[in-house]
């Protein structure tokens, strides 16, 4: 992440120097533009031609599947690398002052083109489709957006997602921070204790959903043993078994617990690193001045790691805003647990209404953007401090 963020600046500096040294003049500038466009398009175009030729070549051969796969991988990796080398070599043949200004485009340009084709174009098209009907055959204005904000299930999904966005990050950061501070004071077992909290991070959302479905599992009283841990404990205290995942209102909280379980480790690791970065002399100075440990924590440690907290917090917010897997696996959005990502998939693939699905997607995208900007800005701040 840090490489990609700082690299363009470096490269800019470099070319600035080159520009001052030997100015290419008007004709030179035109040439640079021409070759830059050429260099940007060269690799994607050549890659396409190469892959297409490779595909046609392989399609005519009666080879076992593994051989085709292997050949495809070789053409894809070695071939693409060779293309870059060739283009780079071609640039060396250009006059030095032009070539040096073109080179960055040859290396960064193809990525931009590919991002444009596979990310930017679909994003723009999604917005366009969101103004069309179910089968994308005619424009219907803002009707899909009206639906998103009037349909009862849609409104429930907005309410629930808001709950996820506010509750999950606070709990994750709270527990993560608390644990990071306390673990910091452990003598020998710190890494072990932190590993325990971090461990769930290795589990996918789907996997966690399945695991926790067993935790919340419910059987009607008298039809067999309660195989769910929660109900086993609950009934052993003499209560009747409860169907946790259908318990109106509470079921959303039970789903959020899964994400907290998964993500607290992430918050803890980042915040723990930040806490270790707080200079010891500041803490010592505060203690000498008579601050209590609680005051040191709130007045010194927390302000010092604020930008890390914000980055973690906003990352969690984005995660929570996008939550899908957990809900889909555990309740399928039933019993009042709809979230907007789940609505999007359901509109698109269950109800086959592409317009509404795209409208939900667009709304989600717009909701994420401000958090994303905040996140990146804070991240840069933090990087700048280092």
């Amino acid at each position, binding site marked *: 992440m840090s490489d990609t963020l700082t690299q363009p600046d470096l490269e800019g500096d470099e070319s600035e120097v080159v520009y001052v040294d030997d100015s290419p003049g008007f004709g030179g500038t035109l040439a640079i533009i021409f070759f830059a466009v050429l260099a940007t398009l060269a690799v994607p175009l050549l890659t396409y031609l190469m*892959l297409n030729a490779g595909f046609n070549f392989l399609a005519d051969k*009666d080879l076992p599947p593994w051989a085709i796969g292997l050949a495809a991988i070789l053409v894809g990796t070695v071939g693409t690398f060779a293309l870059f080398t060739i283009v780079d070599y071609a640039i060396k043949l250009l006059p030095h002052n032009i070539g040096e200004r073109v080179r960055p485009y040859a290396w960064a340009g193809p990525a931009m083109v590919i991002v444009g084709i596979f990310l930017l174009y679909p994003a723009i098209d999604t917005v366009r489709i969101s103004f069309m009907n179910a089968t994308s055959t005619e424009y219907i204005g803002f009707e899909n957006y009206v639906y998103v904000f009037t349909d009862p299930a849609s409104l429930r999904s907005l309410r629930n997602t808001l709950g996820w966005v506010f509750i999950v990050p606070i709990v994750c950061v709270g527990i993560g921070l608390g644990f990071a501070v306390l673990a910091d004071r452990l003598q020998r077992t710190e890494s072990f204790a932190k590993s325990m909290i971090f461990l769930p991070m290795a589990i996918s959302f789907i996997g966690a959903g399945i695991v926790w479905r067993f935790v919340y599992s419910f*059987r009607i009283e*008298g039809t067999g043993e309660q195989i769910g841990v929660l109900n086993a404990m609950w009934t052993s205290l003499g209560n009747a078994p409860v169907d946790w995942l259908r318990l109106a209102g509470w079921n959303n909280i039970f789903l959020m617990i899964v994400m907290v379980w998964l993500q607290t480790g992430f918050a803890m690791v980042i915040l723990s690193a930040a806490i270790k970065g707080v200079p010891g002399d500041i803490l010592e100075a505060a203690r000498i001045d008579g601050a209590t440990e609680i005051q040191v924590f709130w007045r010194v440690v927390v302000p010092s790691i604020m930008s890390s907290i914000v980055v973690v917090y906003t990352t969690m917010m984005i995660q929570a805003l996008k939550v899908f897997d957990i809900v889909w696996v555990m*309740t399928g959005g039933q019993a009042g647990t709809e979230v907007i990502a789940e609505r999007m998939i359901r509109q698109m693939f269950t109800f086959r209404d592409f317009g509404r699905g795209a409208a939900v997607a667009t709304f989600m995208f717009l909701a994420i953007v401000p958090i994303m900007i905040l996140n990146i800005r804070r991240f840069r701040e933090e990087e700048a401090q280092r």
Partner: protein
Amino acid sequence: MRISRAIALGAVSAMLLAGCTTNVYEEGAFAGGGGGDAADAAGGGGGGGNEADNTGQVLVSGANTGVEGAALQEIYDTYVNEAQDDFTVTYSGSDGFEQEVILQIEGGTPPDVASFPQPGAVIEQAEQGNLVALEDLGYDIEELNSRFGEYLVSLGEYDGKHYGIPDLVNFKSAVWYNVPAFEEGGYETPETWDELIALSDQMVADGLTPWCLGTGSDAATGWPGTDWIEDITLRQAGVDDYDAWVNGELPFSSDSIKRSWELFGDIIFTDGYVLGGANNISGNDFRDAPDPMFQDPPQCMMHRQATFITNFFPGAGSDDELTAGEDYDFFPFPDIDGNSGALMAGQMLAIFRNAPEVKEYLDLYTAQEPQCALGTIAGISFISPRLDVGEDCYDNIIIAQAAGTLNEALNSGVARFDGSDLMPPEVGSGEFWNSMNNYTDSGPDNLDDVLASIDAAFGN
């Protein structure tokens, strides 16, 4: 470096995808080339016009996998591939069929024939102009009507033309019961709704719980309840009201449909009828729901579900499997107000390529003999939609009984397709389920609200 790696990665995945596609279509492409050459040669020698189109290959895809897929290929081999030399039929089944076939269609490489799991998907493809109409393929609809009955054929109708040939169906209107427990209690299987209620009351009086009911099904929770409403509606309102209701002409809140919910409510909300009570119905997974019926002593006596549920009975597939006819059996969902009926679900064949060999395959496969032969393959629970394939064709006693009931209903015009599968998906796979859960969770007093919210989703 990182960028180039990302691009390389992208390129690799693209190539891998390309590789996969090659494998899937490779065979067809070769055969296509070969067949084409042969046909060209024949054409040069004065061969006839249509021959040039013959690719020598008919590719059929569908959602039947495992034993079912193998059974279909077996039937194709015996009754199509060995019956003529012009072409070979290959079946490819996939669990992700519904998504994959859409991708293939959009990618311009559909199979020749696809067996869609419900008629709605066929109509959707017809709307988008992707299908070959049966009329254009040279079918006489009257003849098809006499083969499958008017109702099933009409399910594939769009804009005056027909696009689907009825394929394998299964029977849904079955009420399963524990045979030894019925014998012990001296109970007789009911034939009318009143007898069913009387039987349930008798069981309660004897200290038993009559019903096991569970509609839990992950993201599709509620659908088993919608089957109940459909079964009741088909009988108490009759086929005309049923069709009007499914088509959206008769709202859920109409007296006719509302009565179905009230009758269902008589079962689920009567004290002591349902194991665990109504509010636990939606939390009870439909696959686990019948289990208590086979506990010792049985926790409940009856369970209504389609014929596939035997696969989920305790011990199914193992050595101590329950025995059909001895441990369990079913009786058809009882008549209401003197009306009988049968609820079914099933597949429909849609055609993507207009060629003589495709039609020949369809004719050979849907003939009486192969359709009857399907019933002799072990482990298969399909029922043929043909009117002249009766009970005798089936070896399994449960399937034979189901097929007999369904076939009789098809012949007398009272068999109907699962209504929720025919409704728009935002109703049939959305609000109908949701509202069903609201009703079982917190009914019966919220019935009017429940019905109104389904009507709202239906656009009424």
